[in-house]
């Protein structure tokens, strides 16, 4: 059990870092990296639960699928950021705020 807790601890830290990154970084790429961190923290959880929780392999499968989806998402997200860069010459998230109340 202790080992599971260690993994959970790490994943929680990763999760927190991810949230922090998403919230604070201006750079679009960095924000996306924050997202990746969150996804990976979840992955870590899945794998850890699967390995140490004495459970089936569902967790592993879940992890794999998430990796695939994360890659797809990252691809699309990066494409969007590039497009933003093309149009606005910046990848600063703050500057993309023409729409507000």
């Amino acid at each position, binding site marked *: 059990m202790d080992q599971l*807790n260690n993994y959970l601890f790490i994943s*929680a830290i990763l999760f*927190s*870092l991810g949230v*922090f990154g998403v*919230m*604070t970084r201006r750079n679009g790429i960095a924000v996306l990296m924050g997202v990746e961190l969150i996804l990976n923290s979840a992955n870590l959880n899945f794998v850890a639960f699967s390995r140490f929780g004495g459970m089936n392999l569902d967790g592993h499968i879940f992890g794999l699928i998430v990796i695939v989806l994360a890659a797809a998402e990252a691809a699309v997200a990066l494409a969007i950021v590039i497009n933003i860069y093309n149009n606005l010459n910046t990848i600063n998230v703050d500057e993309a705020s023409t729409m507000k*109340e």
Partner: protein
Amino acid sequence: MENSFILYSLLILFLPLLAFVIQIFFGKRLPREGDWVSIGAISITLILAITMFVKMLLVGDPEFKHEASIVWLDMGAFTISLGFLVDNITIIMLLIVALISTCTHIFSTEYLKGDIRYSRYFGYLGLFTFSMNGIVLANNLMSMYMFWELVGVSSYLLIGHWFEKDSAADASKKAFLTNRVGDIGFFIGIMLIYSAVGSFAFTDVFDGVASGMIAGTTLTFAGVGLFMGAMGKSSQFPLHIWLPDAMEGPTPVSALMHAATMVAAGVYLTVRIFPILTPDALLVVAYVGGFTALFAASIAITQTDIKKVLAYSTVSQLGYMILAVGTGVYTAAFFHLLTHAMFKANLFYGSGSVIHSMHHALHEKHDHETDPQDMHNMGGFKDKMPITYWSMLISTMAIAGVPLFSGFLSKDAILAGTLSFAQHHPEHLLLPLFGFGAALMTAFYMFRMIFLTFHGEPKMPELIDDIHESPKEMTGPIVLLGTLSVYIWYTLPNNLSPMSSYGWFNPKLDNHNFKGGLVHPIDSSVPGSISALEIAEHAHHAHHMAMYISIAVAAIGIFLSWFIYIKKGLSVNALAERAGFLYRWSFNKYYFDENYNKYLYQPTLRLADKVSWLDWELYDKYFINGFGRLTNWASKVTGKFDFDVIDQLLVDGTGKIANLIGRKFKGVQTGKLQNYVLYVAAGVIILMVIQSF
């Protein structure tokens, strides 16, 4: 026989209405603007009324009574019937109305000649006559109330006949509203009675009262409520304020409505409902009446406008009648109503005649400033207008209570009743004092009016040449009514003595019984009340004493008037000065209008403004719209929160703080580290939660 009375009543009721309808729709297009339609209709009613009167005399039955009613409104259990009650009182009253109304119609043809709303004026007269007859004929409170209101409207319309004048418009509104105040009481009284008795008809109500369905305080309140209606219509204190102002109407109207008939409706009502008035209610009636009699007389003393004098005199005389009802001698009140109708209408015609000629005279001189009604502009008209003068003098003597004239008889009956009441109830000594005091003042101010108008030197000599006697359409009614102010018409055929009122009208007390006469008082329905006979006997005993006092009082009044205004034994101005505030109070009608205005009308209007402000500016604007504004505000705040707080402050803010701290420490790393720790801590908390299982 029975049918003919009802039929006549129907005709009498509806003919004037017909005239009204014709006048309103076609009057302008008819020759002579259709005045003949109205006169024709009213003359027929007069003939019918006389026929009924004669028939009544022939029947000679004091118990004579016919009733007919139809169900007017039927909800199953709740019904309202309308109907006629034809008895001696009704017929006499019908005759008064028809007679004065006919006179007024004829008088008006001359008085209002050339008026732009001539036909409409006659129409309104018809409407009035219709409604007045309705009151007279009503056999139940509901229809009486309805006609009561209609009379109010016709009064409103006629007072406001010359509505271009603001004063006339004001007066008409005032009359209607003041009457409505009384009507509220009337209506509450009706509701009190109906909710107890379950019927509006007089007979049912009397029976109900007799059987105790309604008694005690409730009955008193009901009586006082009904009496409030009478107070409004008969212009009793404190609702007297409208009648003097009503003189803004054409003078014939004043004669018809505001002297003889409409204002008498209140008295008529109290006479009708006398059987249900409890002793307490009667006391209220008596005091209101008595006080009004004295109070109004005291105002009349100082008025300079000839019509105002007569108006206050009317108020005072009505007070008399009310006083009589209150003290129990209600047939005396009705008797006074009858005589008063004649002489007061005549006085108004007389004053109308004077004003008419003043008007013409002033017109000749192109003088539009001088007030044609101010007695200070008159004087010495005696020779110029002899018919008017003599007729008015007769009527004045009648009202002053000089023997040989009608007023003497009726006034005497009232005073006797009052006196006897005080004899049996010494604590109410004030009542006869009111009566005699008012009688004194009446004699004084009436002769003052005669002296100022007809005697002495002309105050405006330049006018005197243009003062002429009025045409015969006007003098005719004056002469007629002047004649009717002589006592003999009221004592025939049984009695020729001017000192006793016993005649076709009043019964003679004979061996503890009423004998002769057509108007017998009936016993009150209120259980435990003193019987009519007893009242009559008490009054009879006080009769002589009252007569002597009243003659003396009248004589003193007339003498004083002569002494001051003819003999000039006392300077009027000096008197006024010496009397000081008394004079000013009287002259200014005790500041009633001012005080009502200050403490009643204005506060009400202010209240209305406040309420409206509250409603619109406060309640609606802030409370109701407040919801809208609140939503809007919430919307803005939420919108702001959305963007400013969540997006800018929380999301960007964290970054900003990080940046700021970073810059401060010249190394991004340090700043981030601190935030880092914060978020790690948050993560640890999550972990700890998980560890808890």
